[in-house]
Structure formats: C-alpha cells, structure tokens
C-alpha cells in the first residue's frame, strides 16, 4: 500500500478533494469501464457521505472507501455487461511472452490495449483479484480480507484469471493463424 496514506479525522469534502482522482482511477482500472466506474463511485460516495462519521472512525477512511468501491463493483447488478461488449484485438501475444521485457514503447501501448480488452472478458471477481494484487499491490491475505474469502480462494481466482487470459490469447492467435492460412 505504498500509494496510500492514512487520512482519518477529515471531512467528507477534504477527503474527496484529495482522494477522488485516485479513487476514480482505481475504479476505472477495477471495472474496466468508464461509465461503470462513474456509476460505482457516485453510488459509493453518496452512501459514504451519508455515513461519513462512521467511515471517519475507521483506521483508514481511504481504505474503507476503496473497500466500498470493490464491494459495489462485485455486487453491481445492473446490466452493464451487455453494453460492455468489446472487440478484442486480433494480434495478441501470450501473457508472459519473453519479448515483453524488450518491447518498444509503441508496442507496449498496443499490448496494453490488447490485454485490457482481454481483461474485460474475465468474471468480475477474477478481475478484481488481479487489480488488487497487481495494481493495488495488496498481498493475498489482505485481498482475502477485503473480499471476505480465504487466501486460497484468492490464489485460485488469480490462477484462473491468468489462465483465462492466456487461453483467450492462444485461442485468438490460433484463429488468426487459421485466417492467414
């Protein structure tokens, strides 16, 4: 959690003035969808504002609100998925490709977009685990606490997510090769 510090004893307005931009970036990475991120954070902030006294008593209001965001995302029931269909790029390389360390910047941008599109195909919980582990830099015990499950379940979700990302990539590469031949 090197990217955050503790900010207790602050008003809701002080909190949003300093933390909202980071919270929105977190939400968009978590959801993979700008509109959904907006809906989720709006909803969370509305509820957080109503019970700010309770949140401010927590050890870290920032962590508390981020937990609200991930819970809101995981239980989001509105039919966003149907309007979130994304065209996944044709040219994909397996995640973990040995060339990854030596790609030029332009290639990195293309790869990041491809991977972003593949991430959109993951179940929400698997995606959340990857975001919490690799973007939020949380360890599996902290993620398990956040998601209210066992660390083994976190590892299982992460493992399945990485496997799914590789499978998607391999399938598409195969389709692409078939098209070429």
């Amino acid at each position, binding site marked *: 959690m*090197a*990217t955050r510090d503790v900010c207790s004893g602050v008003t809701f307005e002080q909190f*949003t003035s300093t933390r*909202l*931009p980071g919270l*929105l970036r977190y*939400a*968009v*990475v978590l959801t*993979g969808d*700008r*509109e959904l*991120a907006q*809906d989720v*954070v*709006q*909803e969370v*902030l*509305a*509820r957080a504002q*109503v*019970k700010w006294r*309770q*949140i401010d008593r*927590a*050890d870290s209001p920032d962590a508390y609100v981020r937990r*609200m965001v991930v*819970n*809101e995302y995981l*239980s989001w*029931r*509105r*039919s966003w998925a149907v*309007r979130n269909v994304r065209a996944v790029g044709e040219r994909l390389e397996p*995640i*973990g490709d*040995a060339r*990854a*360390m030596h790609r030029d*910047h332009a290639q*990195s*941008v293309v*790869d*990041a*977009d491809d*991977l*972003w599109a593949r991430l959109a195909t993951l179940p929400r*919980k698997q995606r959340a685990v*990857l975001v919490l*582990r690799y*973007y939020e*830099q949380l360890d599996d015990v902290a993620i398990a606490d956040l998601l*209210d*499950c066992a660390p*083994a*379940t976190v*590892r*299982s979700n*992460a*493992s399945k997510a990485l496997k799914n990302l590789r499978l998607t990539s391999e399938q598409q590469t195969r389709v692409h090769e078939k098209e070429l031949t």
Partner: protein
Amino acid sequence: MNQDADQLREAFVAHEYLAPDAAEVLAVAHVRARRYRRRRRAAQGAGGAVLGAGLVASSVAAAGWLPNNNGRHDGSTVSLAAPPPLPNPSVSASPSPLASPSPFASPALVSSPTPLSSSQQEAALNAYFAAGYDYDNALALAQLWHMSGDPTTVKAEAGRRLLAGQTLPITPSPSAVASAAEDTDVSAFFAAGYTYGDAVTLAKLWNGSDTYQAKIDAGKKLIAGETLPIAPGSQPTAPTVVTGSSDSAGTADLNAYFAAGYTYEDALGLASLWKIADAYQVKVDAGAKLLAGQTLPIAPGSQPTPAAEISSEAAASADENAVNKFFSAGYTYDDAVTLGKMWTVGDTYQVKIDAGQKLLAGQTLPIKP
C-alpha cells in the same frame, strides 16, 4: 510470472486516463446523498422496526426461532461468521428491517448451499437483486443460515430459493427496493437500444447533470409508453475522455516516463523518495522531468518486484497441484463439502487443497471417493 505482473500493471496504468471527471461524479454523489437522507428519514418516520442485521439475527436466535440456539442446527453447518474488523462498507445507509417472526423463518436454515454453475449463479443473483434484496440483507441471511465466507454464496442461495418459489425469512430493505425499481428503469432504457451517450444528451436536455438519473427517468417514460426526444443510439457512444491541454500534457509525460524504461515499481520507489502518495502523479512528474532533460534519482527498472508476489504465485501453483490430486483420486465437489463439515472448514476450495495435500503426502482421507 513477473512478466505477467508487469504486463498487467502496464495495462492497468495505461488506462488510468479513462477515469471519469471528478467534479461531475461529485456533483451527482451529492444529489444522491440528499435523496438517501430523505429516504432514511422517511423510513425512520414510518416507525418501522429498523434494526441492524446483526442485532436482529441475535434476537432471532435468542427468541428460539432457530432449532438450536447454540448456533448449530444439524451439525452440518459451517461456523458462524466472525464479525468483520471494520463496519462493513457495503452496508447501505439505512439498516435492513426484518420481517416479523413467522413460521416460515425456522425451516430456512441452510445445511450447505447447493452448488450452482456460473450461469445458474448469475440467474440466482439477478433474482436476488430483482426482488429488492441487497448486501445488507445477505449479511442478515448469512447469520440466520449460519453461513460464513463469501456473501455472494449467500445471495446466490437466496436467489436460488426465490427462483424455486420459496420465501426468504427477511424482507428487502426499502433502499434496496428503490434500487431494484431503478434497475428496472435503467434496463428498460438500455433494452430500447439507448446508450450512455444518449443518457448524457438527455441529461442536458432535461437540465440535469446526473446521467444515471437520466437513464432512470428515460426508462420510466419508456415503460409508460412515452417516446423520448432523441432516437436510440443517436448520440456518440464512445467514451468522451476529457482531453484538455493539461490531460494531453499528462499523457505526454506518462509516455515519456514509460518510454524511458521506467516501471510501476520505479514509480513506487520515486513516490517514497519524493514523499508523494499518488503513484500516478509521480509518473506524470517524473515524465515531465525527463521531457525537460532532467534525470531521475533511480535508474529505469531498478526497483524490484515485491517478494510477496512471487511467493503467492508459488503458493497458487502448490494449491493447484493439491486440488488436481484431490480430483484425480476420484473425489468430487460433494466429497469436499462433506469433508468441510467434518473438518469445520467453510471454504470448500480450501478443503480440496487440504485434502489434496494429505493425498500428496500419502495420507488417506476419512471418506472414500
């Protein structure tokens, strides 16, 4: 595996720019907060029995609604959920009122949730939310049913019962009912072919800033058979990312940062050196310095990947081996559930790992495959 982590981080940070506009989000949040306060006051004013989920569940047990007051009913339940370390953030503003005690409450206990496929689970969750239940209600149900662990499992079990025509022992909270009604409106909006871009335009036409509210209002009109002032899909649907001059500059700074070979871990290192909490801002600042011809205090790629990440991947691989061993020995999901009850482990996946590890160690399990 570290390359996976690097690629994922790159993908994540490369799309941070999609973050919505903070001022717009905050304005809408304020409007909704006022609405929630009004709802809460209305609920309290109605004199309903508004009790916290935990309190009510305790009262339920104490009143003898449960077959056994000691928290166990048939010896087959998992342990009672421990109270969370923090007050749960997903709990809605107003606590969930529970139904008054009734005969249908007592047989509602769950010995073990019925395993559902992912599509069945999705359908069950949809049914749960469509009936107006929320996260708060799931916590109450978990206590009534003595289920611990993932609240999603509780919601799915409750949804499965609703789909089977059964009644749940609690009533939905008023805020969740309102939310479910909003869902119907929003679904009608999208089902008619309207898009987010359309909602933005409608919000402007109706002198509002809340695009979500516009979707609700529009959906209500559509359900009522009215027509909207714009055609479905007539407005731009692509995300309208704000690309003002400062954002463009920020993007250029970010590009410069990554083009120089710096990584996300480097940004964390710089954040620590510069005492800046926001790693994104660090990257922008660092990129600006690079563009200005300055050098950074650390070399590109010099910051190590956290050791915890590497060890967690190794643990994941060991878990997978154990689970594979469990299934290859002929055991099934139901066996794992049975073992979980014997070992009082609520997490079935953990049971499979424990059992698999025993099998790998040459031990036998207390049940046959």
